[in-house]
C-alpha cells in the first residue's frame, strides 16, 4: 500500500506545482490572447462593412447576425454582417459577409479555410501581394440570386481546378444572405407598418353571393 501511496502523492505534488505555474502564465497571457481574437474578428467585420461604426449582435432562433449602424445613435442601419459556413474540399470554410440594406453583398472576407494549397487556397492567396483578391471581390454588389458559380448559372468565376471550394463559398454566402433576408426582412417590416391602421377595413365589402 505504501509503495502505491507515496509515488501517487509525489505525482500529485508535481501536478499541483505544474498547475500553479500554468495558472500564473495563463493569467498573464489570457487577456492578450482574447484581445487578439477580438481584434481579428473586428478587423474582418470592419473590412466587409466599412460604412458602419457601431455594431450590435442579434440572434433569431439559432441564427446570429450583426447589425451595423452608421453612428452611435443607431438611427440609421448601414448594413449587416453574417458568418457563412461552407463545406469545402478539406475544411469548413468560414466567410464573413457584409450585407447592404438592400441585401446585396457589400463585401466578403474568407477568414478561415484549409483547402488544397495552390488550388482551393487560391480563393485567398495572391500571386502578387499588391493585387486585389479577385475571388472575394467578385461578390461585391451581388444579390443572392446571382451568387453562384458560373457552372451553376451564377455570375461568379470559379477557381480553376477548385470547383468544390468555389462552390462551397458561393453556396454558403448565398444561403446565409438569403437567411438574413428572410430573418431581418420580416422584422424590419413589422416595426413601423404595424402602427398604420388601414382605415378602409372598417367597411366590409361583401362580394356577391352572400348565402352560398
Amino acid at each position, binding site marked *: 500500500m505504501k509503495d502505491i501511496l507515496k509515488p501517487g502523492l509525489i505525482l500529485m505534488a508535481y501536478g499541483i506545482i505544474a498547475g500553479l505555474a500554468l495558472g500564473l502564465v495563463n493569467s498573464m497571457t489570457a487577456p492578450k490572447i482574447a484581445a487578439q481574437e477580438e481584434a481579428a474578428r473586428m478587423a474582418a467585420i470592419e473590412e466587409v462593412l466599412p460604412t458602419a461604426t457601431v455594431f450590435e449582435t442579434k440572434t433569431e432562433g439559432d441564427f446570429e447576425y450583426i447589425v451595423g449602424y452608421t453612428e452611435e445613435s443607431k438611427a440609421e442601419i448601414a448594413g449587416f454582417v453574417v458568418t457563412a459556413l461552407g463545406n469545402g*474540399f478539406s475544411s469548413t470554410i468560414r466567410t464573413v459577409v457584409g450585407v447592404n440594406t438592400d441585401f446585396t453583398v457589400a463585401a466578403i472576407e474568407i477568414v478561415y479555410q484549409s483547402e*488544397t494549397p*495552390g*488550388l482551393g487556397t487560391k480563393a485567398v492567396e495572391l500571386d502578387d501581394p499588391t493585387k486585389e483578391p479577385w475571388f472575394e471581390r467578385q461578390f461585391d454588389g451581388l444579390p443572392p440570386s446571382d451568387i453562384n458559380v458560373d*457552372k*451553376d*448559372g451564377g455570375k461568379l468565376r470559379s477557381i*480553376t*481546378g477548385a*470547383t*468544390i471550394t468555389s462552390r462551397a463559398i458561393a*453556396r454558403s454566402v448565398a*444561403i446565409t444572405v438569403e437567411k438574413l433576408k428572410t430573418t431581418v426582412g420580416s422584422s424590419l417590416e413589422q416595426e413601423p407598418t404595424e402602427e398604420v391602421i388601414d382605415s378602409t377595413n372598417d367597411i366590409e365589402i361583401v362580394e356577391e353571393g352572400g348565402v352560398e
Partner: protein
Amino acid sequence: MAEKKLIVSSSPHLKGGASTTAIMWNVVLALLPAWVVGIYYYGPRAVWLTLISIVAAAATEAVIQLIRKVPVTALDGSAVITGMLLAFNVPPGVPWWMVVIGSAIGVGIGKQVFGGLGHNPLNPALVGRAFLMASWPVHMTTQWILPRGGSLSGAVGIDAITSATPLSVLKLSRTAILDPSSTPEIVEKARASVEAIYSAWPQAMIGNIGGCIGEASAIAILIGGLYLIIRGFSDWRTPLTYIAGVALLGWIFGGAEGLFTGNVMFQIFTGGLFLGAFFMATDMVTTPITKKGRWIFGLGCAVLTVFIRRWGGYPEGVSYSILIMNIFTPIIDRHTRPRVFGQSSKKAGQ
C-alpha cells in the same frame, strides 16, 4: 552470356520459354493500336509526348542502374512500357516536362528504388501518374484536347458540358441533381447533360471523346489486350472480372439519380477502364500470381473504381483502384496459395 531473369515473388514462372524481353516487347506491340488511335484523334502531340515519355523512362532506368552498379536493362522493354503507359494516362495537352518527370518518378521511385524489375510493389506508370496528379492537379484535369471530329464529352449540342470529360460531367451533374438546394432549372440542365453523355457511349467506345491519349478507344485497347491473352502473356481472369464488376456495380451505384440508375455501357467505356483492366491490372509483377487471386484482384479493382467514381473527390477511379489493389497483392497471394497434394487438410477429424 547475360541471363535475362524474370524475377517473380514465387514460382511458378510464366509459360515456357518466354524471356522478360520478349514478353515486354509484345506488350509494347499490343499497345500500338491504342497509340495509333490516340494519334488519329489528338494529332502529332500524341506522338512526341509518348516518345519523350519513353526516352525519359529508359534514361532514368539506365542512369539509376549505372549508379547502382548493376547491369543496365533499360531496353528490355519494361521501361518503354512504363513510358508509354504514363503518356497514355495523362491529358494530351500537358507540357512535355510533366511526362518527363512522371516517367522519371515512375521508373525511379516506383521501380528502381525497390531493386528493379520484379521487386516493385506498385505499378510504376501509375506511381508516376499519381505523383503528377498530386503535384499539378490543374494541368492533369484541364489540359484536354478536342478529339478530331468530336467533342470532349462525346455529346453534342449542350454547351455547358462540351468542355469537360464524360466522367466529370457525370459527377458534376449528379451533385447538382442530388443536392437539395438545387433549383429546378439546374436539375433539368443536369439531367439533360447526363442523358447526352449516356447516349454518347458509342463515341467512348470508338474513341471520339476527350480523355487521356491512351484511354480514347476501347476497341483499340481490346484488340491489343486480346492479343496478349491469346498469346498467353496475360491472364483473362483479371480484365474480365474488373470490367464485369464495373458494369454491374456501375449500374447499381454509378447512376446520377440514385440506386440502379447507372448506364452500363457508359461506365465501362469511359475513363480508361479498358486500358487499366487489360494493361495495368495484368502486370505480372504487381498483381497476384494465383488464379483465385486474380479474380479477387479484378473484383477489388472494380469495387474501388465504382466507389471512387461515385463518392470520391475525383471523377475517375481506375488508377487509384489499381494502386490500392497492388498493395494487397502479397496478402492475396498468400491466402490463395493452392494446396499441395499430399498435405493434410486443416479440417478437423479428417
